[in-house]
Every structure is written in structure tokens, then in C-alpha cells.
């Protein structure tokens, strides 16, 4: 069973990221704060008897469900999932090839200079904007997999879908982000 200190430390470590995640989904600061608060309350009320190692997965699941509940309450769930394929078609354009990126710029890893990091920091707002535009399932998979650093199977469990779906969502999300950022003239 997690101690109060462990629970407090855990919530402190995830609260900001959880807020941002919710904000990307609902695009409403107050709603995002409410969702995070509800998720914290649910975790403490129902799962405080779980061990500290179980808390991250539980919290991700609760946060996802609470966000979904918010959309249900807003009666926009259908709208949320209706445009699921829009980005996929755009992202699968002929001009996109990751291998080309890789061979053309083998220097990607080497180019992480201070200047590059600074440029990235300036482009954060653009990245966030493009993340908000992703289809919900792609966005959720992308954030869970890469930002929350869950592995594929954990992401699948949190999203209630198959491992294959997670891989597809993540891949398409990255492609879509790459295309969008490139179109804006940013160095992805």
C-alpha cells in the first residue's frame, strides 16, 4: 500500500503533465484542471490501497477515462471520433518517407546542439498546437507512448486497444506532426 508521502510525491510528479495532456484534448483550461482534480480524487478515493508501483498506470487510465467522461458530458463524443481518418490520409502522402529523412540527415542525432535546443524551445508552442490538431486516438497514443514513456503494451492497456493499434496510432501521429511542422517551415 502506498504511503501518503508516496502518493503525494506521485501526484506532484504527474500533475503538470496530466494538466497539459488534458488541455491538448479538451482545449479548455478550466475543464482540464477539473479533469485532473477529478482524476486525483478518484485515485486517492479508490486506489490508495495499491502499491506505489501501480499508481502510474492506474492514474493514466483514470485520466483517460475522466477525459472521455468529460467529452461524453459535453455530448461531443461522436464529433471527437468522427474525423479519425482525416489525418491519416494527409499523413500518408507520397512526399513522405522517413527513410529518406534518415539517410538524408544522418546528422539528426549529431545536430542536437545548444542552438538546436533553443530553436526547439521556441517551437514548442507550434508543436503543442499541432498535437492538439491530431485525431484524439493518435494524440492519446503519442502522448502516452512518448511523453508518459509507457511501453506499447502499457499504452494499449491504458487505451483499451490492441498493441498493433497503438503502433499504428503512434506512427501516424509522428508522420502527421512531421508533415505539419515541415509545412510551417519548422525543422522537425
Amino acid at each position, binding site marked *: 500500500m502506498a504511503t501518503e508521502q508516496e502518493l503525494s510525491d506521485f501526484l506532484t510528479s504527474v500533475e503538470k503533465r496530466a494538466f497539459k495532456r488534458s488541455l491538448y484534448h479538451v482545449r479548455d483550461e478550466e475543464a482540464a484542471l477539473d479533469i485532473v482534480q477529478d482524476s486525483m480524487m478518484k485515485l486517492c478515493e479508490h486506489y490508495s490501497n495499491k502499491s506505489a508501483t501501480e499508481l502510474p498506470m492506474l492514474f493514466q487510465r483514470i485520466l483517460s477515462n475522466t477525459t472521455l467522461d468529460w467529452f461524453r458530458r459535453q455530448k461531443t463524443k461522436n464529433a471527437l471520433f468522427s474525423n479519425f481518418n482525416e489525418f491519416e490520409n494527409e499523413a500518408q502522402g507520397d512526399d513522405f518517407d*522517413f527513410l529518406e529523412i534518415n539517410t538524408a540527415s544522418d546528422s539528426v542525432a549529431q545536430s542536437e546542439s545548444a542552438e538546436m535546443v533553443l530553436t526547439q524551445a521556441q517551437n514548442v508552442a507550434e508543436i503543442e498546437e499541432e498535437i492538439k490538431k491530431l485525431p484524439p486516438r493518435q494524440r492519446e497514443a503519442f502522448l502516452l507512448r512518448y511523453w508518459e514513456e509507457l511501453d506499447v503494451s502499457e499504452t494499449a492497456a491504458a487505451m483499451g486497444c490492441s498493441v498493433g493499434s497503438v503502433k499504428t496510432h503512434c506512427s501516424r501521429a509522428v508522420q502527421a*506532426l512531421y508533415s505539419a511542422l515541415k509545412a510551417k517551415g519548422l525543422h522537425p
Partner: protein
Amino acid sequence: MTTNFTLRNDVETQLAMRWVQGLDASLETLPHHVSERLRVARLKALDLQRVQLKQTASHLSINGGVATISGSDEEPNLWSRLASYLPLLVLLAGLIGIQEFQNDSNAHKMANLDQALLLDDLPPDAYTDPGFLKFLSVPSDAGQTQP
């Protein structure tokens, strides 16, 4: 084919990790009111957990005259329940005993007083008391039938 797929995955991961680094950096620049609201939400949640813990630990058991709080979720058995009522029963029995003792004591005092009055000499002033004169005028058998 497999090599290409792996390579593609690596590049995707590399790109994604670079973008989320930017997102991590943005967490440090959250507005104060948002950070404060998150802090309050966290404290509320922890308060709720404290209440939950108190509720589960509120089972009071008395063992050998010592009251202890146990956190067990098990239902208390019959003997434990009876034991918890024991002090109340002792208190009630004590109160009833004191009441009976006081009643006996008062009755005994009144009986002694009556006995002393009846056995004592009648004072002359008693004949000036209208109530005593009235008592004397009533026949003795009528006095016995009166309630």
C-alpha cells in the same frame, strides 16, 4: 524489409522524443494560477485519502479494559460486540443499585421518625393545633377506611 521497418521505428521514436522534450520544457512555464490550482487539487485528493483511512481504522475494540483502534476490515464477532456493551450495562446496574439503596434508606428514616413520634409523649401545644383536633374528632374506624 525488417531492417527498413526497424529503421523507420527508430527515426519515429527519435523525432517523437525530441518533440516531447520540448513539451517537458513547457511544463516549467505554466502560469502561477494553474500551478496553484493543481496544488490545491492535490491537497484535496490527499485529504480524501486521509478520510478514507480514518473510516477503515475506526473500529473500536475493548480488550482487558484497554480500548484499542484496529485497522482491520473484518466484521467484529458477537463477543466483541457484547464486550463493547459491557461498560454501559455496568453503569446502568450501578445507577439502579444506588436508586434502590436511597429508597430503602429514606423509607427507613421515615419509619424511625414515625416510630419516635408515636412513642413520644404528646406535647400540650398539640391541642391548640386545629388539624390535630380534627384528627381527634374523627372516629378511629372511619380514619382507618379513609384513603
